[in-house]
Structures are given as structure tokens and as C-alpha cells.
């Protein structure tokens, strides 16, 4: 039933992040009483649950946020972790082998845009190391860029991994909350790179010159005014989107009861 040719998937395996460490990307975007808190980081799902609360308390204390944030942060983390754990028992079929990943972030004053190929089937891959090397090689001054890149890569890998779960294919309804305003996640994992063509007799490993610009990382440092302008625009977008979502929800509830 399953044809065994080199491009096809191997035997299905249990769901996990296709990286050396089975870490989960967590994104927080909370708005309580007009105060906005956005954050993104990597979490080890094997850490005990008590860590979540401790982390929430510590973050709130460090950033001097109002204490109502503690429960919200903890809940948000728990929800995302629970979602991750819910995938864990299922099998995933990794069909694609090499996918392009995109980075399109703005962290404080630094804008990073990049695209590169990533081997999904390499279970020893390490987004953290990639991010560290990236920052070192490109001499990025802001230390917050590294984690942002790592989280972005992990999110894309997570997306790919969850899509490859057969049972999850049906329940792909309106996944909100996974995308922050900063990044454009690459959910089109379908445009894989066909290895056969590339490394076959006609193809060559060396990238064509005309494609170089696509895969070149771009790092821009913005001035403070530009940052301010971008922030304001994003804020506006986020607010509009939220209003739209609310309208949509109320529409659904109203007419689903009727």
C-alpha cells in the first residue's frame, strides 16, 4: 500500500518536534486593562507544572506588571502546553524532507529577514544553535534577536509537525493566536524542495546566482522614529483584527443558535 521510494515518508513516528530537543515555542500576547504584554520564548515540556506558575510570578515581578497577569500568563502557557501534549500520542507522517523556512522579524530596533532550507527529517537539528550562530555571524548587537529567531524557527517547525499528523488534518479550523503581529509564519509547507531534481544528474548543489538574493539574510537597524511608527501601525492592525474577530464570533454564536 505504501510505495517505498526515496522521497516518501518513513514509518510514521510519534509526534515530537523534529529537533534535537523537544521544546515548545510559547507565545504570549495578553491585553489586560489596557496593558499589553507580548512575549515569546522556548519551553521545555518536560519541566514540571510548578515551573509554569513560578515562571509567571517571576516574570510579573521582574517586569513590574500588575498581579492579574500572573494567572493569565500561567493559563496561556498551560493552554499551549496542553495543546502540545494533546498531539503527543498521535503519529505523524513526515513527507517533506527539506522545507524552506522564513524569518521576518522585528525585534526592538533590528529587522531581520531571511530564508533558508531546513531538513525536517533531521531529528538532531537545533534551532537554538542556528539562532546563536546567526547572531554571532551577523554581529547582531541586540541580544533579544537570538531568542526571537529561535522561537520563530520552532514555531514553523511546530506548524509543519502538526500538519503532518493525519488526524489533525480535519480540525484545522481558524487557528488564532498563533501568529503575532511581528512575524509572518510560513504555513505553506507544501512547497518542498524536490531533492531528486536538485541532486539528480541535471541539477547541481550550487545555488543559481539569480536565486542568491532570495536566500540572503537581511539585517536592518531602524531608527527610533521608524520603530515608533511601525509600533503604532501594528497596534492599530492588532486592534482592528481583534474587533473583526469579536464580530465574527458574535455572528457565529448568534446564528448557530438560530
Amino acid at each position, binding site marked *: 500500500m505504501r510505495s517505498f521510494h526515496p522521497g516518501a515518508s518513513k514509518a510514521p513516528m510519534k509526534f515530537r518536534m523534529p529537533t534535537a530537543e523537544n521544546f515548545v515555542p510559547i507565545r504570549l500576547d495578553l491585553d489586560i486593562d489596557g496593558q499589553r504584554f507580548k512575549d515569546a520564548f522556548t519551553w521545555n515540556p518536560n519541566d514540571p507544572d510548578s515551573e509554569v506558575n513560578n515562571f509567571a510570578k517571576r516574570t510579573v515581578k521582574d517586569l513590574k506588571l500588575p498581579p492579574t497577569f500572573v494567572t493569565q500568563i500561567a493559563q496561556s502557557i498551560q493552554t499551549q502546553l496542553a495543546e502540545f501534549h494533546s498531539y503527543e500520542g498521535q503519529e505523524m507522517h513526515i513527507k517533506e524532507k527539506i522545507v524552506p523556512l522564513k524569518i521576518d522579524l522585528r525585534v526592538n530596533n533590528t529587522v531581520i529577514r531571511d530564508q533558508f532550507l531546513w531538513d525536517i527529517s533531521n531529528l538532531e537539528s*537545533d534551532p537554538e544553535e542556528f539562532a546563536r550562530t546567526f547572531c554571532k555571524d551577523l554581529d547582531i548587537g541586540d541580544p533579544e534577536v537570538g531568542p526571537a529567531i529561535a522561537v520563530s524557527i520552532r514555531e514553523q517547525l511546530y506548524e509543519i509537525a502538526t500538519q503532518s499528523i493525519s488526524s489533525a488534518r480535519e480540525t484545522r479550523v481558524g487557528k488564532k493566536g498563533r501568529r503575532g503581529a511581528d512575524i509572518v509564519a510560513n504555513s505553506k509547507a507544501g512547497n518542498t524542495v524536490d531533492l531528486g531534481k536538485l541532486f539528480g544528474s541535471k541539477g547541481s548543489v550550487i545555488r543559481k546566482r539569480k536565486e542568491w538574493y532570495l536566500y540572503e539574510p537581511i539585517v536592518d537597524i531602524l531608527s527610533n522614529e521608524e520603530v515608533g511608527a511601525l509600533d503604532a501601525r501594528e497596534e492599530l492592525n492588532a486592534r482592528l483584527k481583534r474587533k473583526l474577530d469579536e464580530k465574527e464570533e458574535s455572528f457565529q454564536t448568534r446564528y448557530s443558535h438560530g
Partner: protein
Amino acid sequence: MASSSPPPAQAPVLSPPNPPRPQQLPQPLPVAAVKSEVPVAEPRDPPASVSSIPLEPSPAAVAASYTITIPSCSGWFSWDQIHDTERRVLSEFFDGKSASKNPGVYKYYRDSIIRRFRGNPSRKITFTDARRGLVGDVGSIRRVFDFLEEWGLINYTPLAKPSAKKGEMGDDSEKKETPRRICSHCKSSCNMACFTTDKADIILCARCFVRGDYRPGLSSTDFKRVDITEETKADWTDKETIHLLEAILQYGDDWKKVAEHVGTKSEIDCVARFIKLPFGEQFLGPEEVGEYGKPHQKNDKVVTVPEGENVPEQSLSKRMRLTPLADASNPIMAQVAFLSAMVGSDVAKAVAQAAISSLHKVDIAGGISASDDRLQSAASNGAKEEEAVAASNGQTSSDVLNEAVAEAQSQLKKEEQDVEQYLSDVVQVQMKEIQDKIVHFEELELLLEKERLQLRHMKDLLFADQLAIMQHKMQLLSKGNEKGEKVKQTNHVP
């Protein structure tokens, strides 16, 4: 997760601002110098007089060459190396279990966090600052951060008051008083109580002590129990205890004055401490406590410490009545003799027997030697009592055996009784089961009987019906025959 905590900050030591030079801080010598100097020096001495190491850096005053201080307990830190302490506490990076958690990553976290802090040392770096600037999972970063903070490599500000520091250093010179010790066996910090032995300079946490895997040369009796919770809370040094007792002697019930005399403890603490000193009971009810109290005392501390603590108190109050003993060369015996002089020779003998039987060996010399200076005197009866004590030594072991045998027998009897009881219970239960079954079967029989009767009844009815039908048939037949005959007759006739 084993986490070790350093002993409380000792003399903070200068380290030059952080170019990534390996700074093997020159502590060992200067620290020693500081340590030995200060307890002797007057508490009023300004810190500047202490050799070349100022105890208080002034980061604000000197802008260009600000100084970073770290506690001397963290002197092992070096930019180029990873020390055993780090390997031990943060073993997740060094056990090779995960590919991405390796010493390089650990070094990256550690160095980044420390550099970040030292970039702005007047401000404490928060965990969120640190983790936002580091690539990795926040759990591991948190552990590294906590470790660095605990060991004073970041967010460490030396204490301002010289007297506070001296108090701590005075404590540190006495190993017993230091709170938060690390078990030398399992490398975890002992929180409730720890057991030390001076034979081998080992500290064990309660778990390792109970488990019993010490070195072959030691036995459980060699260990002395040190209650840490009490100590950390109260943290009473010997000096303070002496002050307390002196003050009580002088001021009696006036706890305010007592607290003043002690100096560093509040009234409530003084009262609590005084109550906790167990020597009072010995003299309130000597017979009881002497015979029954001692055998059950697993807590060696009570045996040893009161002897240390009692002496100053008793000596102070009874100095008038007793002639000081010349012989203080064997301090334990001297104290024993002293106490026994208080209670009388009979009680003392009983006490000694009981104490020896619970200890097996009397080896308190090491613990008590520290309180040598507090020994005031021993009674002149000491020599006599020593003999009595020595004589009773020989008898005690056979007594102990007899006791043990008797107890074992009584326990055996009890067990037998218990077993019998259980058996009878079991049998009873079985019988009840059988009885229930019998009742059940009887009911079943009843039902069956009823059914049988019903069946019989039905059979009878059936039989009756059959009969009726037969009769009917016969009647019909006979009628038919008659009719036939009549017809025949009529047919014949014409």
C-alpha cells in the same frame, strides 16, 4: 535536583572589572588574613584598617574603575573554566543526556548573564532580562540564573555593616553553627537536621544517615545530630548562650535586661532559647529523667550539649557551694562528675548506666572540647564518681542483654496472641459465609417446592381435562351408536 547553597557570605573580595581575563582572584591568602584578623579585632575597628582589602567597594564614587565584589565562597569562578561546583549543581549540562545541553551552552549562558550583570552592576539583573537575551529554553536558563545568583556571581551586594559581617565570620569559624550544610555523601543541602561526626569530618543529611552507608570506620553512634532548623532560626552561638545564662543569673525574670545583655537576640528569642535548654528538667525530677529519660534519648545533642551548657549555669550559681575541681584534663569526666555532684551519687550512677547503654560508647570528647573554655570546675567528688562510673561499666552490658531478651519474649507472646486472634477472626468469617450460603439454598429449595406443587396442580388439571374429553367422546360415540342403531332399526323395519 541537587542544589547546593554556599555558606553565608564571608568576607567579600575584590575582583577587578570584568575583561574576559581569567581572574583567579587572589583570595585564599587574603581571605585567611581577613578571617583570622577580624574576630580578634575590636568590633569598632573601621574596615579600612583591615589590610589591603576594603570590605566595602564604592562603585558610585569611582566611576572609571568600579569594582565587582563576589563572595569568597565563589572564588573558584573563572571565565575560562568550568568548576566542579558548577558541574555538580547544574549536572544537566554535563551528563551528556541531551545533545544541545553541553558545557559550551552552559558557558554561553553563564558568561552572558554575568557579563550582562557586570555591564551595569549597580542594578540587579532580573531573570526576565537574562532569558530574553539568551537563546534556549527558559527552564535551563532559569536554573543557571538561580545558581549564579545564589553563589553571588550576579546581583551580589556586599553587606554594609561591618558588625554584621563580623558576626557572620564569627559564626563561620565554628563549623557547628553554620546553617545550610551540604551532605558530603549525596551532595544535597541539609535542611532539617544533619549528622556530623568529628571522627572523619563528614556531614550527612538525615536521609544518608538513616540509610546507613557511612565509611566502614564509622557507626551510627559516632554521629552527632545537629538541628539546622532550630539553628537557622535561632542561630545561637555559644557566646550568646553564655551571655544569656549570665544574664538570667543576674537579672532573673527580667527578660528585657536579659535580652539587652545578650545583645543580638530579642526577649522572645531569649525566653524561647532558655526554655529549650534542657538542663532544667534534670534537676526538677532527677530520678525520673535519669533512669527513663536517658535510654530513650537518641538525640546525642541533649546528652552532650546540656553538659556543656549546664556547666556555666550551674557553675555560676553553685560556685559558692562547690569547691572547684583541680582536674579539668578529662573534660567529659569532669562534667559528668560535676553534674553527678549536683544530683547525688545514686542518681548519677543510674544516669551513667542509662547513658552508656544508649550510646554504647562514650565518645563525646570531640564535641565538648570546644566548650573547654567554659568549664569552670569539677567537684572534688569527681574522683569517687569516676570510679563508680567505671565500675558500673562492666555490669551494664549484661543488664542490657537481659533486658533485651525479656522484651523479645514479651513481644513474641504478643505476636502469638495476635496471630491466634486473627485466625479466630478468619474462621468466624468463613463460618458466616457458609451460614449465608445455607440460608440461600434453603430459600431456593422453598421456591422449587412451590414450583413442583404448581406443576402437580397443573398436571391434575390436565388429567381432569383429558378425562372430561374422553367422557365427552364416549358420550358422543355412544349417542352416535344409539342413533345409528335406531337408524338401522328404522331402516330395517320398513
